[in-house]
């Protein structure tokens, strides 16, 4: 019993300075867990830190089996060669060689007429939308576009290319050449290989002449925008985002021009324009076309 008590209680008188090493018997033994079926291995080590506190250090590593290399004898010898040149100075943190975090696939070619651009192998449309610099909001309706949200989503037909359009006829055109106007992540359906010039696409083409206006004042509404922008050319649609609860403008809106050149003029003239005591910001609604 006395021996047990002695184990529990450290007799401080018997301790010397800098004697941390001898206290190791107080620490629980280190534990190695794994590797499990995902290859995760956990090593839990207990030690004392500088202040004499008991510290648990958990190291989690993933053990991965790399592609098996069938090495010849000379290759195995070469494996033992010491490093030379600039590799001499290499330390563990040099990170010259990294396994890609993205899964890259051998992408099979697409049939002609299908979508030209597609999201990166691991990127998702939301990441792309937020990378476009737009505000990080997710529209409930289309779930993708990052700079608007309402139940009546005006841009559900401008959804990113992962959604398919039912009325796009197959064509015999080859895949669009990279020389055509490439609009970043999103290629409007009329610009793709299977361009459909029916009336439905007329509306969509208007949506490509869409101009986003931000930093609007609270009481700005559609008629105000229409009046401001119509001087540049015929406007097919205006929209101002309004908070349902307060009835105030959310500070931004969209203007769709019929003609692209008018949209360009509007952008160059009105960007920075003072309107109702605020400086407007006027730009293309989709990623810049060049």
């Amino acid at each position, binding site marked *: 019993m006395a021996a047990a008590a002695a184990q529990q209680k450290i007799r401080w008188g018997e301790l010397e300075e800098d004697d941390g090493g001898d206290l190791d018997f107080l620490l629980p033994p280190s534990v190695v867990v794994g590797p499990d079926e995902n290859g995760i291995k956990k090593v839990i080590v207990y030690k004392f830190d500088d202040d004499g506190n008991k510290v648990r250090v958990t190291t989690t590593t993933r053990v991965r089996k790399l592609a098996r290399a069938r090495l*010849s004898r000379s290759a195995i010898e070469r494996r033992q060669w010491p490093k030379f040149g600039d590799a001499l100075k290499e330390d563990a943190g040099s990170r010259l*060689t990294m396994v890609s975090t*993205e899964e890259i*696939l051998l992408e099979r070619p697409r049939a002609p007429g299908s979508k030209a651009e597609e999201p990166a*192998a691991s990127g998702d449309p939301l990441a792309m939308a937020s990378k476009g610099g737009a505000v990080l909001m997710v529209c409930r309706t289309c779930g993708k576009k990052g700079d608007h949200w309402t139940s009546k989503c005006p841009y559900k037909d401008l959804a990113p290319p992962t959604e398919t359009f039912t009325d796009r006829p197959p064509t015999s055109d080859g895949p669009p050449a*990279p020389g055509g106007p490439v609009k970043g992540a999103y290629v409007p359906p009329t610009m793709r290989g299977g361009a459909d010039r029916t009336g439905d696409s007329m509306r969509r083409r208007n949506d490509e002449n869409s101009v986003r206006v931000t930093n609007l004042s609270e009481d700005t509404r559609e008629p105000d925008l229409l009046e401001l922008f119509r001087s540049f050319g015929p406007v097919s649609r205006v929209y101002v985002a309004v908070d349902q609860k307060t009835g105030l403008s959310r500070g931004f809106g969209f203007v769709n021009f019929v003609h692209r050149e008018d949209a360009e003029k509007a952008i160059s003239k009105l960007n920075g324009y003072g309107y109702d005591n605020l400086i407007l910001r006027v730009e293309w609604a989709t990623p810049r076309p*060049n």
Partner: protein
Amino acid sequence: MRPILMKGHERPLTFLRCNRDGDLLFSCAKDHTPTVWYADNGDRLGTYRGHNGAVWTCDVSRDSARLITGSADQTAKLWEVSTGKELFSFRFDAPARSVEFAIGDALAVVTTDNFMDHVPTVQVKHIAEDIDDQTEESALVITGIKGRINRAVWGPLNRTIITAGEDATIRIWDSETGQLLRESDKESGHQKTISSLSKSLDWSHFITGSLDKSAKLWDTRTLTLIKTYVTERPVNAVDISPTHDTVVLGGGQDAMNVTMTDRRAGKFEAKFYHKILQEEIGGVKGHFGPINALAFNPDGRSFSSGGEDGYVRLHHFDSDYFSIKM
């Protein structure tokens, strides 16, 4: 597959080469320092310091003992692969653009550019087994090609030398006399600069890539055009799979498209084509800039690509690559 990214070079890659056993990968770049990596996991083994200019090309001997590199500093250097020690330096009057060991590693062919007043040349050098016997003299010098020679390789049994370059013509020369034996047909051949050339495993056929957005497969002995692979981008690098009927093309971007291309990262791809059917199998994206170098591993199970972005990407194929049915 998860490619292994190796960022050992500060400047664009120019050339990649695997050794015969497939366990080492040599990379050359414009940053003066060729590097050797282990080809299975991409660990860097070492670098070869000594060049003063962009290194355009390299080749490794069959026993992986010697490395020869050609550089814009107007030298070609012989190195000891295991230690990085520079063994010998061949001096030229112009940048050395292409080097290759012959079968047996006793000869090497080096090309020099048309620099200032000098005409481009193809030179054959003896490689001595004992480095103390190494001399600079050329066994053979071929002149008479107008444009820059981008690649010069040995033909079967070292009997011929095959050159390709800016004048879009492939020429076969006798390696002993320097006489021109064959020229590729102008009509069916490439229309623009041939940027790259790579032989099949048995050297019976080779593929050339050109800035005219195509790659062509030729017979080594007769210089007959066998196949053509069409792509949308100028081709900077080509290679033939040693085990499967696949060729890979890597390319760049037309100057006129640069402003219109979206700057989304990682869009430059290496395109795989079925060697015989000439159809595209697929593409592997990931590079942030045009691809300048491609190399299949001799076991056919992996390949590496080097880009303008300075990265070498080493890919081990997934099982679905081997089961692709066309």
